[in-house]
């Protein structure tokens, strides 16, 4: 009887976790893709994130949302990945190896004219460039706010930073975007 009950519990937990994966995997992948600009690396880190989450699922107490918790794991994994790459030159070369024009190609045309689309594409390419040059923290905060649309308290929980620090990072990042856009 007890064995049967624990088996049913185990199945319920597996089902719950599988729903979490289905619901949040695209978002985690998107954040890691925007942050690393490397499809293979983003996929690998996403898999590692859910593997780690699965191992620690019992420890998740629901104090924050599952999304915030997963995002925190993803951010730490990405940080560890770059930290483990001790050769700064290689890190730099790899980061710059992504063609940013390709990324800015993914712009929905909407109701705009061809000229407007070209201008918008150029501006988006500039934002990609600025984001690539931001520090790790600034980039993370910027992406969580303006790509994942998280509010400051969720960003604070995901990054472990205070809201004041997040505001400062956002302000600096936006200032860099503005400067780049004006410079054109």
């Amino acid at each position, binding site marked *: 009887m007890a064995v049967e009950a624990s088996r049913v519990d185990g199945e319920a937990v597996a089902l719950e976790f599988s729903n979490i994966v289905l619901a949040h995997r695209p978002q985690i*992948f*998107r954040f890691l893709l*925007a942050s690393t600009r490397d*499809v*293979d690396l*983003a996929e690998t880190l996403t898999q590692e994130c859910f593997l780690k989450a699965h191992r620690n699922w019992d420890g998740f107490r629901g104090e924050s949302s599952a999304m915030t918790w997963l995002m925190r794991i993803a951010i730490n994994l990405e940080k560890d990945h770059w930290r483990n790459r001790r050769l700064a030159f290689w890190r730099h070369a790899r980061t710059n190896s992504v063609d940013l024009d390709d*990324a800015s190609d993914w712009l929905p045309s909407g109701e705009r004219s061809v000229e407007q689309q070209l201008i918008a594409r150029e501006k*988006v390419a500039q934002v990609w460039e600025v984001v690539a040059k931001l520090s790790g923290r600034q980039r993370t905060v910027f*992406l969580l706010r303006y790509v994942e649309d998280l509010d400051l308290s969720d960003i604070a929980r995901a990054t472990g930073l205070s809201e004041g620090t997040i505001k400062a990072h956002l*302000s600096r990042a936006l200032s860099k975007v503005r400067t780049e856009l004006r410079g054109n």
Partner: protein
Amino acid sequence: MSFRRVSQDEPQMDESLKQTLKDYRSSVHAWSAAEYSQPHRAVRIYKTSWRVAASWGMGCLLAFASVAGGVYERQHLKEQAKIAAVEAARQQKIEAEQRNASEDLFAKIDSDVSREVPSAMEPLAKMMVEDSTE
């Protein structure tokens, strides 16, 4: 779509910047959605194993080169020291031979030129002996 305004303290943005950030967001979402639906795993595994193999190969080569370099350097120093020791011994031998030759020569000269010389004070001594007997 507009970004959720979460705080009055958040940086102010003009419409143009807002639109650019929305476009940027759309591009990230579209790119991610397109990549997410494509299989990449086989490529990744291949690339990873190739990179790992290359890293190990390079690491082994570097380790071998370092060890071989160290051994060669040590051997080279040993040979240098041996040559220096032989050279020093040869030099010492030559110096010793030269010294011996000089000493023999001086000894020969001494023996050739030396002779018995009567004591210059002998007559005076005799006179002093005679005076005292008288």
